[in-house]
């Protein structure tokens, strides 16, 4: 049986004007899960709750087999690499100094691995953090997260605000990490194309509610895009149609292939299509 690296059950967290409701999620070992949702959907809150960095109202979270509110979780944090949406490193610190700080923080810190990441990412070791570009700051955070033999990577918007070249480079790094035995990655992003490239599972959060959590390939097989006339769409079974757009010349809808009549041509839906249509359906 495949073991889960992260398990979330019945998680609730309420803020003024926002609530994360009844979140159930499981990230199996060896997988990359994409946590997708609009800004303010609850992605960062979920990651902070996984690390028990903020209080919760209800629910249980197990990370690498350890309850994250137990005293043992402090030791488990040694095995978790985290990159936050803002790198949160004091601006006068250099990459070299960060390495020294991390060496005193993680028991399994590997300085040579860190140095090699700095070299690979072309990060100047003596340049102050405030002089780094957005791409460089994210790379520095990732270099630190990958240098202490972590088994789980939690990446909060780690690719946001980066140019496509850098994003592609980093996605390859995450994919390589997940290949290793027992490793897993939880990557939150609202750039759905990035998630489609590398994720095995997709969890879609919308306004604090988990709309779906499924294998990406199953999701892409299940849904399709139907482009037809307004007359044709009236004959499609209602259970097949999730959300539709009616234009002056026809209709476009997200449909479930299983319920579709054979005579209508259903195109392949991208993950972005699925997310957009499903969020529209949720709003309705």
């Amino acid at each position, binding site marked *: 049986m495949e073991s889960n690296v992260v398990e979330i059950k019945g998680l609730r967290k309420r*803020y003024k004007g926002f609530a994360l409701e009844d979140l159930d999620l499981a990230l199996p070992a060896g997988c990359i899960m994409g946590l997708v949702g609009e800004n303010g959907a609850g992605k960062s809150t979920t990651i*902070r709750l996984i*690390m028990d*960095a*903020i*209080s919760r109202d209800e629910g249980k979270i197990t990370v690498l087999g350890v309850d994250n509110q137990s005293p043992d979780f*402090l*030791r488990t*944090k*040694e095995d*978790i690499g*985290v990159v*936050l949406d*803002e*790198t*949160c*490193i*004091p*601006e*006068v*610190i250099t990459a070299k*100094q960060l390495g*020294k*700080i*991390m*060496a*005193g*923080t*993680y*028991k399994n810190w590997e300085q040579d691995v860190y140095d090699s990441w700095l070299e690979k990412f072309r990060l100047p070791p003596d340049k102050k953090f405030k002089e780094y570009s957005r791409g460089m700051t994210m790379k520095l955070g990732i270099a630190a997260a990958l240098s202490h033999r972590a088994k789980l990577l*939690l990446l909060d918007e780690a690719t946001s605000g980066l140019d496509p070249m850098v994003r592609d480079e980093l996605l390859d790094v995450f994919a390589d990490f997940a290949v290793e035995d027992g490793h897993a990655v939880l990557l939150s992003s609202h750039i759905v194309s990035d998630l489609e490239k590398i994720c095995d599972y997709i969890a879609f959060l919308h306004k604090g509610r988990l709309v779906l959590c499924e294998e990406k390939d199953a999701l892409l097989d299940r849904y399709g895009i139907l482009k037809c006339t307004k007359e044709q769409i009236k004959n499609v079974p209602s259970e097949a149609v999730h959300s539709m757009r009616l234009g002056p010349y026809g209709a476009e809808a997200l449909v479930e292939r299983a319920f579709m009549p054979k005579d209508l041509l259903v195109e392949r839906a991208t993950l972005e299509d699925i997310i957009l249509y499903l969020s529209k359906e949720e709003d309705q």
Partner: protein
Amino acid sequence: MTALLRKDLYITGRQLRLLFIVALGLAFTPQFHAVGTIYLLALSMTLSQGSIASDSRSRWDQFAAMLPIPAWKIVLSKYLITFLAALSMGCVACAVSYVQHRFLDGSISVPLTVALLFTVLTLHAVFLPIIYRLGVEKAQIILSSVCFGGAALLFAGLLMRNSGVIRFVESVVWLTDRSAPVLIFGSAVLAAVSNVISFRLSVQFYANRRYGLYD
């Protein structure tokens, strides 16, 4: 722990060096001997406050919550860095006081400097939990108002010849001259007790703040 101390030194080191030079300059400027010495001692207190302010600005605390470091260690590092700074600044201030007192007619003796150092540590013990409870911005407004108000009252008291302030200062100097060990011992005990209580409160406030319980 060394990692946290190292980080704080990286952050505040440059600022500390600059302030140290200014304080030393003041201490050897006629009319400013006392101010310079007190400033030197007070520097140790600004180190932890500067570091907490920087942590808050850079959102380091959010990152620290992800690291395998318990909250009490982070708080302890702020106390330790203050003690280390107090030790080194105290040595410099004592040397400065000795030179002032012996050769430059300065009013602050070495025993009084030591007693002042412990007083600074007591003040630090009072300030730190307030910073952790209220957050850096609010706390700094309150603390600067208190410090500014206190300094203004002291200055006003010194200007008014018949006020109790001059008599108080004279009695402290008199006490230092006659029973320095009592004054030093008393201030040291006060500093130790207040820091133990302060540390416990700071850990609780820091953990609650980081956990979002004050939001």
